[in-house]
């Protein structure tokens, strides 16, 4: 993977909180190539969300280097090279769905016509066509997250950062949204860094799964996922899928995860 292809390049990154008392991440090095879908998985407290936020320049690292799109993370943030989706939709109740999606566009100074056109595209992308005029509280949790994704992609960033976006949803909705997300990913051709605590979700979605160890978070292993694209519901029943899930699970164990995260017991 040449440096030119790497959308995100992390070199020897460490992060400590509280004046050095708590080391969240230790010596992380990772490259994410254009068009990849990389999941970060690890036990609670392993720093995966912290890592995501460092890539997004929401938190600063203690040491090490992060480049996004060939620039510093800070420059990438100021140039709005990425979109971010959190576990909670973070939608604004006082804005309709359409206006929530157009929030970053307004801040970028797009004119009304351009915004309206883009909103229409995004709403079609996430399949919420008849809900543009609704308010967030009129939608289900899954629908709200779709709006959140539409908003993150509205300005066509090269990179999409996602922090356990489906964690608060039920299993059925989550599986459906996984398929949606993959469709969107292939349609937009963006690069995705996806944090999750679900092994099956990580394997299902990704081209590579990065396993982090328990605190202090180090890379315990990287599992390339060679399942066929495009992934479908049938992929979950592929024997190779189970092998990969087991592989990831074993690396989590080895990385010091005290509790192996069973799919069935996810909250």
């Amino acid at each position, binding site marked *: 993977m040449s440096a030119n292809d790497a959308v995100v390049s992390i070199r020897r990154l460490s992060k400590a909180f509280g004046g050095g008392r708590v080391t969240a991440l230790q010596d992380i090095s990772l490259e994410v190539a254009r068009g990849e879908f990389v999941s970060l998985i690890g036990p609670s407290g392993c720093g995966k969300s912290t890592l995501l*936020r460092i890539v*997004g*320049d*929401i938190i600063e690292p203690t040491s090490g280097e992060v480049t996004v799109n060939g620039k510093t993370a800070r420059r990438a*943030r*100021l*140039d*709005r090279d*990425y*979109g*971010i989706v*959190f576990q*909670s939709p*973070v939608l*604004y*109740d*006082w804005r309709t769905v359409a206006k929530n999606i157009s*929030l*970053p566009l307004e*801040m970028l100074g797009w004119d009304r016509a351009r915004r309206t056109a883009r909103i229409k595209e995004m709403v079609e992308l996430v399949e919420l066509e008849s*809900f543009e005029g*609704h*308010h967030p*509280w*009129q*939608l*289900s*949790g899954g*629908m*709200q997250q779709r709006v959140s994704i539409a908003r993150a992609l509205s300005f066509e960033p090269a990179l999409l950062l996602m922090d356990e976006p489906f964690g608060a949803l039920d299993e059925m909705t989550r599986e459906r949204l996984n398929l949606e997300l993959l469709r969107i990913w292939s349609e937009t051709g963006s690069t995705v860094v996806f944090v999750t605590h679900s092994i099956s979700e990580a394997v299902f979605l990704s081209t590579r799964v990065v396993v982090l160890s328990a605190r202090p978070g180090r890379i315990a292993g990287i599992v390339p996922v060679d399942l066929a694209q495009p992934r479908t519901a049938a992929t979950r029943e592929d024997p190779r899928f189970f092998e990969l899930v087991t592989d990831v699970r074993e690396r989590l164990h080895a990385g010091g995860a005290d509790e192996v995260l069973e799919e069935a017991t996810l909250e």
Partner: protein
Amino acid sequence: MSVMAQPIPQGTIVSRVGRRAQDWIPAVVVFGLGIAAWQWLIPDVFHVQRFLLPRFSAVMSTFWHERGTLWSAGWFTFKEAVAGFALGCSVALAIAVVLSRWKRVGGAFMPYAIAANAIPIIAFAPITNAWFGLLSPWSKIVIAAVLCFFPVLVNALRGLTSVDPESLELMRSYAASERAVYRRVRIPTSLPFVFTALKVASVLAMIGAVVGDYFGGSTRSLGVQVQSSVSLSQFETAWAAILVASILGIAFYTAIAVVERFALAWHPSTRGASE
């Protein structure tokens, strides 16, 4: 929140009015009972003397006959209240925005603003009279303004700083300027808090203006009207004037509530959720 998207239920006109009637009929009934009690129960059964509470019909007829003086006195005092309200609330909102910007400072001052809210401001009425002169409306306006200032400051500050951290992270991901964060997130989030405080302040402003009169004021004001009527044993007039003060206070409050309904159409408390 996993409410499936549904159209807001409409129903027929009749059923809508019927549902609404359930809401206001009890209040109307109580109103009727109250008037009846005032007219008959209190004077005839409890033998309450005229100088404590005259009969309803007597007060009403005086209300009608003296309506000119009463309403002009009411308007005079109402203007003082509104001016004080505008002054106090705008200064409070401005300071709240400034304090929310520098969180450390705001956090340090909050307990003092809250404690200052506990000072009986009304006790300063004689002093504002000394400053601005008994007859000047400014002495009452300042009292009303100070009464409004602290509740609005405390609540606005609370609202401006109650933004959820992920929302701020989102704004950071947009490389948003502080101004943009205020305009798009903090201020809308603070509106419910601000309106609650404005409603409280509206009543306080009116009361403050009237009470201020008791420490000395212009004969054109409502509070002085009540006092002079009492001293002349014109108790019906006194009560009619009290009624005017109350009506104006309610009107002021309702005006703010109506504005709130429009400004906060999106908020849970005004979403018309049947409770």
